[in-house]
């Protein structure tokens, strides 16, 4: 029918325009990272030299290492705490709204507020700030995200099999290892990947809790410092790598746990 043809044509146009809007800016950025010339003015040939120059930039390499340390440790802690929290909550038949709000809060508090709160807190305690304080801070929001992913999985969990396992004489630990864990494992891994991605990308809280000095500069802090000086092909190359890493981690996470982003 003519009407439905016009309608589906309209729908397709909207999709094309929206996806163009979402992807053209990052595609241009990625394309320019392979530009020989190094200026945004004109394409002058394919080159990998900006990637090579990244590999020789010690400030970026040390920032990348710091980011990796922060992301790995905070993800490990958050995955453990967040998973236990999720099981603890879902085990209960009822819980208060306050508990729900407390767990939801780290996901919605503006970053800048949590950042200054932690800065005030750490300096009041006279704590020397560095990578360890960034890790403490990142666990706060990471555990909330892990918890929400694992809880979604536990919603359909049949707790009677846990009771059955206990009735058959299995210890709490054996029951967890042999019954609960296999069911929630994909969600735990998906949650961990999500936490890792968030931690790798997090800038504001890290910026405020890193303390003085360049020793604990993370990759987003380094990127922010570089961006403020303007456009360089080197940032384009770095940005392309960072995007590729987070997009890969997220795609993996999505495949492991269908629906965490499609919810």
């Amino acid at each position, binding site marked *: 029918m003519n009407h439905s043809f016009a309608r589906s044509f309209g*729908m*397709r146009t*909207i*999709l094309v325009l*929206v*996806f163009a*809007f*979402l992807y053209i*800016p*990052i595609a*241009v*950025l990625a394309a*320019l990272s392979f530009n020989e010339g190094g*200026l*945004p*003015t004109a394409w002058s040939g394919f080159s990998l030299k900006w990637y090579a120059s990244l590999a020789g930039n010690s400030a970026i390499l040390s920032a990348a290492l710091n980011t990796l340390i922060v992301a790995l440790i905070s993800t490990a802690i958050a995955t453990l*705490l967040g998973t*236990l*929290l999720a*099981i*603890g909550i879902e*085990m209960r038949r009822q819980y208060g709204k306050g508990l729900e709000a407390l*767990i939801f809060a*780290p996901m919605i*508090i*503006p970053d*800048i*507020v949590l950042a*200054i*709160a932690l800065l*005030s*807190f750490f300096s009041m305690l006279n704590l020397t700030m560095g990578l360890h304080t960034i890790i*403490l801070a990142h*666990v*706060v929001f990471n*555990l909330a995200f892990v918890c929400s992913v694992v809880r979604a999985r536990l919603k359909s969990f049949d707790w009677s099999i846990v009771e059955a396992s206990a009735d058959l004489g299995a210890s*709490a630990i054996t029951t967890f290892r042999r019954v609960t864990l296999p069911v929630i494992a994909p969600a735990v891994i998906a949650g961990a990947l999500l936490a890792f991605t968030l931690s*790798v*990308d997090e*800038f*504001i809280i890290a910026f*405020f809790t890193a303390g003085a000095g360049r020793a604990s500069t993370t990759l987003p802090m380094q*990127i*922010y410092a570089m*961006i*403020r000086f*303007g*456009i360089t092909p080197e940032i*384009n190359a770095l*940005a392309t790598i*960072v*995007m590729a890493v*987070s*997009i890969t981690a*997220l*795609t993996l996470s*999505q495949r492991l746990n269908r629906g965490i*982003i*499609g*919810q």
Partner: protein
Amino acid sequence: MTRPSRSSLLMAPALAWLAALMVVPCALVLALAFFRRGIYGGIEYTFTLENFGLVFDPLYAGIFLNSARIAGTATLIAVVIGYAAAYAIAAAPRRWQPVFLFFAVLPFWSNYLIRTYAWIVLLNREGLITQLLRWFGYTGEPPSMLYTEGAVIAGLVYNYLPFVILACYAPLSRLNPELAEASRDLGASAATTFRRVILPLTVPGIAAGAVFVFVLSIGNFVTPALLGGGRFQMIGNLVYDQFLTANDWPFGAALAMALIAIMLLVLMAQALAANRASGHVTQAGGGTDG
């Protein structure tokens, strides 16, 4: 061990972490807002309300209004584009919907700074847009698009659009197609059907998306700093300055609390909108039952 006590034991480490590193620090900021700034930038522990008074000082109130305007404009644009996109995705064949949704959300999970930087690359004087204009025969001065309010708004819309798409898609995909058919059969035009049937049923999604964009935009400091070139102060920048340059922590704390207050107000408005929308649905349901 009983189930509740085992549950408490499992939750304890995470809740302790949140208490020590979120609740206590936030309470500390709240307390800080009631103290005075010391002469040398430290904190003087005498009770005062003047930090909150300063928030309403015309100079700062102006920045609040400015932030609200920028965040409001970004929210409006993001909701219109995001709703249209969600509508188009929900109208696509079933098996394609998850794929479209995944690719709509994917950019959202890449680094925020990089997504903002991509707009510097696009909008700078020799960027893609200038190149395109030249290609179409434009010969004048390159337009200055970067470091304008428009650039800040574009950056905010770009960064938060995926969430609006997600939030609007949820109710749109659950919409019963028979409702729209019934409305058409009863003689309503497509526009009326949309306005009277589809839109009210999807208000919760719009509200959730709008709240998200507004709250994140109004507290943002990265986008105004990078795309506004520091010319457009928003609340986030103001908080940043008090803590890292002006060294007036009590005032910065008061500003942060004002930000939280705005956020809570907006969340309450959202809950109200969602309630009213569900009331609307119940009424419609009650009509058919009765």
